[in-house]
């Protein structure tokens, strides 16, 4: 039965713009995740292909991934000379150059062309309609020689198959030194130590794991610092009556308008004098001294807790800190989790401060490591860039689905999120 109330009735017309807009909004992320599992040669195709596809052939019952097929064009012969400069190699030659087990081979030495005949064995006649495919490897750092096959076009199949190996490949790509990139992945990850565990170890390898560890360290310490300091200050500004409290609160509100770029030059000087440039300290130590926005948010929440609770505790002989710790904090879990979540998110996403304060690759956060890789190799290796970006994005998506309520509540009540 149709709802007669025009205020609560949904017109089906609403769905059309919503479906169009939600498609537009979700396409970029979808594109990121789909490109991240495409083989290199599929990336940049015109028109773009959404799903990852790979070419396969079957050789002696074994399924082999291969590069896109290339048509041979004219009839050729595949021969292996048993003597001469190309001894033992598989060569694709014109039929006219091979007669009765003898290959006519032209080799250029400096500006002279030497023509000579060598004994050679015919392996396969290759008609012009055949295609050439090479064995496909994920890693460009592999030492294994790619096999080459010439076969009927119909023998090459194309199947939908995500290249999950792009993720380990992206981890390899983010590795700081070229020498380390050639290591096997397992060894690479095992050797990638975190800077604070191996002080002074010059042989350590800096990979994605190092960046992840740095990012997590900064994020977790920032959460601890912000929660402890901002809640203390918010308590002092809301539940203890003292002269000067309202002045301090007004100053706190006013400082919310001072943007970081205004302060970054003198802050650089401060941290330089402390000897903190090039370490992670500038990113988390300040959080232990409170932040205006979080103090404001927690203060507003603390004000809603009835003062009778504190009064009763005070009569029972509780100290101010005990009231804070045993009564106010446990009641403020929703506000504290909003603060924790946003602090974690902004530490994870932060870019400008790490860019300025971190100078050594072993202290880079993920965002900075990704940008450094992008600035060196951007514009070509899009599949790896997307895989690396996905590694930065996926934890946030997972976090969102676990803490969806806190996110939405936090943003609805504070009017901002993670900015």
């Amino acid at each position, binding site marked *: 039965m149709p709802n007669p109330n025009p205020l609560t009735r949904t017109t089906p017309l609403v769905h059309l713009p919503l479906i169009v807009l939600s498609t537009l909004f979700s396409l970029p992320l979808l594109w990121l995740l789909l490109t991240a599992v495409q083989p290199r040669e599929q990336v940049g195709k015109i028109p773009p292909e959404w799903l990852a596809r790979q070419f396969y052939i079957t050789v002696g019952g074994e399924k082999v991934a291969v590069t896109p097929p290339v048509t041979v064009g004219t009839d050729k012969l595949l021969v292996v000379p048993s003597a001469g400069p190309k001894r033992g190699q598989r060569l694709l030659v014109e039929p006219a150059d091979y007669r009765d087990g003898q290959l006519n081979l032209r080799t250029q030495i400096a500006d002279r062309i030497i023509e000579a005949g060598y004994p050679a064995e015919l392996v396969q006649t290759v008609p012009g309609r055949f295609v050439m495919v090479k064995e496909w490897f994920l890693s460009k750092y592999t030492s294994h020689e790619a096999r080459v096959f010439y076969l009927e076009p119909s023998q090459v199949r194309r199947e939908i198959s995500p290249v999950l190996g792009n993720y380990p490949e992206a981890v390899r790509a983010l590795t700081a030194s070229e020498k380390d990139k050639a290591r096997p992945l397992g060894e690479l990850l095992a050797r990638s130590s975190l800077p604070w565990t191996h002080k002074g170890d010059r042989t350590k390898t800096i990979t994605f794991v190092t960046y992840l560890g740095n990012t997590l360290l900064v994020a977790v310490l920032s959460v601890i610092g912000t929660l402890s*300091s901002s809640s203390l200050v918010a308590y*002092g500004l809301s539940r203890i009556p003292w002269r000067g409290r309202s002045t301090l609160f007004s100053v706190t509100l006013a400082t919310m*308008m001072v943007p970081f770029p205004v302060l970054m030059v003198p802050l650089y000087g401060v941290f330089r004098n402390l000897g903190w440039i090039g370490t992670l300290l500038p990113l988390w130590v300040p959080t232990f001294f409170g932040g205006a926005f979080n103090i404001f948010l927690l203060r507003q929440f603390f004000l809603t807790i009835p003062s009778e609770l504190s009064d009763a505790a005070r009569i029972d002989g509780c100290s101010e800190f005990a009231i804070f710790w045993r009564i106010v904090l446990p009641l403020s879990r929703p506000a504290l989790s909003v603060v924790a979540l946003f602090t974690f998110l902004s530490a994870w996403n932060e870019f400008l401060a790490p860019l300025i304060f971190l100078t050594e690759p072993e202290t880079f956060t993920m965002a900075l490591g990704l940008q450094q890789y992008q600035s060196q190799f951007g514009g070509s290796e899009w599949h790896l860039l997307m895989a690396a970006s996905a590694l930065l994005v996926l934890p946030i*998506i997972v976090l969102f689905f676990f803490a969806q309520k806190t996110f939405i509540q936090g943003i609805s009540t504070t009017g901002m999120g993670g900015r």
Partner: protein
Amino acid sequence: MSRANSLSRANRRNGLLFCLPWLIGLTVFLIYPLCAAFYYSLCDYSVLLPPVFIGFDNYLDLAKDPLFWKSLGNTAYFAAGSVSLGLLVSLSLALLLNSKVKALGVYRTIFFLPSLMPVVASSILWMWMYNGQSGLINTGLRALGISGPAWLADPIWAKPAIVIMAVWGAGNAMVVYLAGLQDVPASLYEAALIDGAGFFQRLIHVTIPMISPVIYFNVVLSLISGFQAFTQAFIMTGSTGAPERSTLFYVLNLYNVGFQDLRMGYASAMAWVLFVIILLLTWAATKLSQRFVTYDR
């Protein structure tokens, strides 16, 4: 009397103790740098050598610096574009979602998730999307029979490209507006309906005035953050703000001057000008809000 005195003394001591971390933080990480920035702005300062006082020369040089004006113009363009388009899109989305739509949670997630993305990752993603030949955007336009521009490589289209990316991330404002809309009492709509108000009349005379404080708050915040835009331009177009410095944003310019050229005094002058601009914008928004924002409920 003495009891009350000792209580107030204890409160004062406790209050100061609880606020101690912030008093230190405020001084060391905010007030000192802000004053230091002002002092440096009157100096020739390169971090490596002690600052040399030169009076207001940095500010006079700024007024004659074409890059300063260029970056200011670019930033104003970006802030105005991203704030107005962002407001339009996020408010429309909130209105659409507020019409008791089914699968609200799914839609909200789709619109909200992009705003959580790390800027580094979304910048790299949009560089790929804006790729002139094989990018998704131009492919989509080609399907509609439009041959798209080179976006980030085109001095005219690079700024709009960054604005569009910002609108994609405006989903958090939508969540705020949606929460505001859900707080509007239904009785107001019922009264408007009885008076024979149509959809647009209800929108203009009930909905917008009722959520105007939320709109005001959000517009001010996004203006302030719009003037601080840095990462997108730094990653997508490099620190020079290519092409033709069309994406040289204010903070990008400040970063170049301070941390690439090591002209920290000049950078501090730029920082103070930015601070004053943000103060003026907030003040102007507050003045405007007194005329247009409805606070009584």
